[in-house]
């Protein structure tokens, strides 16, 4: 009796979380999928089935293509930039510098801020009549020109700058932990063989950090696909809709334009994008496990 309870207890404890998770994650995903094949406008409407019409409409919209293009630019530059900058900072900090603890905190601090704060602060910094440009003019450098934020073709790069500023410290912390985990004797052996320091980093240390790189990319790339608050605070999608990303597109269509069906279709596309990154990763992780044991 007590034994059967013992074996049942873990299942009982996990069950509520499982049910809730199932209903509110997978259930809502399915609901969203259903909505995306209906003609829902202001309110959900299940009477009219339109097949893939909402998706066709979605891919005919200029604004959706702008959002996709921005997502591409943003994810590549944001993930790449945070990775390179984070790795560089980590390697420099690993050179046994003085006050390392203090510096580490300084670089990690932006991560403690929400994207809303980052976005608002950078909105002011990058605004030509408030921030850097004005500062340079006031200092006497009157030919200085930096108005990326207000030009429709460059504004997305401002989002990238703010994003990297926020996340580079996080990447640095991960890399630093990775670097600390490397056995000193490997480096010493390489030095005995006469390898130069850059060569040691390039050929030995960075390859060892591969799993860290991988998890950093995973964390940052899903942040970039979900990215909503940073864009909302920094540019609100403007000028025009030139910095729109899929998340802001989805929000506007579903909740302010009364096109829930279209919004649901774009949300499904976002889900597919996230899945395209996460599923291969999970697959490789789950397959690798048995070998470790």
């Amino acid at each position, binding site marked *: 009796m007590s034994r059967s309870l013992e074996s049942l207890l873990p299942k009982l404890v996990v069950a509520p979380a499982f049910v809730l998770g199932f209903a509110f994650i997978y259930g809502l995903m399915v609901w969203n999928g259903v909505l995306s094949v209906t003609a829902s406008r202001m309110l959900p409407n299940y009477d009219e089935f339109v097949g893939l019409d909402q998706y066709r409409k979605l891919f005919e919209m200029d604004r959706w293509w702008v959002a996709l293009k921005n997502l591409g630019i943003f994810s590549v530059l944001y993930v790449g930039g945070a990775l390179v900058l984070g790795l560089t900072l980590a390697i420099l900090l690993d050179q046994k510098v003085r006050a390392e603890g203090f510096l580490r905190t300084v670089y990690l601090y932006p991560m403690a801020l929400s994207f809303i704060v980052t976005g608002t602060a950078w909105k002011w910094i990058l605004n030509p009549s408030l921030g850097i440009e004005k500062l340079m003019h006031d200092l006497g450098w009157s030919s200085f020109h930096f108005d990326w934020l207000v030009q429709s073709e460059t504004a997305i790069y401002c989002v990238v700058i703010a994003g990297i500023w926020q996340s580079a410290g996080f990447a640095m912390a991960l890399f630093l932990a990775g670097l600390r985990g490397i056995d000193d004797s490997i480096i010493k052996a390489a030095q005995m063989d006469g390898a130069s320091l850059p060569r040691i980093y390039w050929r030995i240390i960075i390859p060892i950090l591969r799993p860290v790189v991988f998890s950093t990319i995973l964390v940052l790339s899903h942040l970039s696909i979900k990215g909503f608050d940073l864009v909302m605070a920094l540019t609100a999608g403007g*000028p025009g*809709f030139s910095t729109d990303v899929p998340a802001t597109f989805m929000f506007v269509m579903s909740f302010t334009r009364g096109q829930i069906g279209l919004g649901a279709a774009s949300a499904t596309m976002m889900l597919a994008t996230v899945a395209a990154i996460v599923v291969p990763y999970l697959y490789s992780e789950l397959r690798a496990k048995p070998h470790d044991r």
Partner: protein
Amino acid sequence: MLNKSKLAVALASISFGVAAMAGQVEVLHYWTSGGEAKSVAELKKMMEAKGHVWKDFAVAGGGGDNAATVLKSRVVSGNPPAAAQIKGPAIQEWASEGVLANLDAVGKAENWDSLLPKVVADGMKYKGNYVAVPVNVHRVNWLWGSAAALKKAGVSSMPTTWDEFFTAADKIKKAGLIPVAHSGQNIWDFTTFESVVLGVGGARFYEDALVKLDQKALTSETMKKSLETFRRIKSYVDPAAPGRDWNLSTAMVIQDKAAFQFMGDWAKGEFVAAGKAPGKDFLCAAAPGSAKAYTFNVDSFAMFKLKDAGAKKAQNDLAASIMGTEFQQVFNLNKGSIPVRLNVAMDKFDDCARLSGKDFVETAKVGGLVPSAAHGMAIKPAAEGAIKDAVSQFWSDDRISVADGLKNIAKAAATR
């Protein structure tokens, strides 16, 4: 939750004696700023004087977008408030979902048909029945000016044509001031564009192009000229405009850093709050070329179907109070708009409001009274949003030619 509200109703009916006649009225609104909140408090007082229980349901932010989201969830769950602040074609959309109450009984008793201009009354009706009550009228096609800035630049009066406007703008630029304080957000891009179309093409053309979305009008020469004028205005705007909030642009005019702003009369509230006097410190005029036309933005309350008899009675009383002279006057004095009811005394209002009131009555007679497209009064949200995008993209990106801009807007207008 349900028990509590029943209890409140019960308590209310006990304390006011006449049972069944009193009820609870829950009102969803997004009037949360200083002047607006004061106006709502007036309405609450009136309802309480009639023995009803007022349940405030304010959802701040997003120009009503947040409120709309909350409203949707309440209606979907079968528990709508008595009244909700909804305006424009959204009223028709809600009515077509079959959730709005019929207010014809109150409308007839209070004689609304003769108290409202026909265009406004039509917007409140679904299939000929009143389903909503209008509160106020904002005029959108205003041009605000800083008296000090204009004087400094040697401009003697507010421009009445586009030629005069650009001559004045050149002078202001030469004087080292910013000619136009613009807010580079898509709604304000569209607001300015709407005033330009009205000024260049007149009320009838405006109606064809931006209300009926007639493709012929949208691709006409007049539209092309509107776009050219619109782009020309941009050359008088400072580079920090993108993303700026409307009230910050108004502040530039208040501080005499900028000379003009295209904005609806909610801007007046900012001027007055800064201690500026209309006609002396700041000037108001219809946007160039649009003196004989009036783009209106009417706030209204749609009433939802309720089951409880007491609550229904309270709802009808609310509808009657909103249209009453007393509320129309008090509310609009606080809000900066004008009464939607036609024969309300205007002597307590300022010069700008009186001009607005006069033009409202006159343009209503000659067909110059048209709904504002930028403020959700004329077209359904999907098409409105698409046009707003196209207009805003044209404004922000100088690489888009006038011909392409014309094509994009016409294509956007076909969104359904």
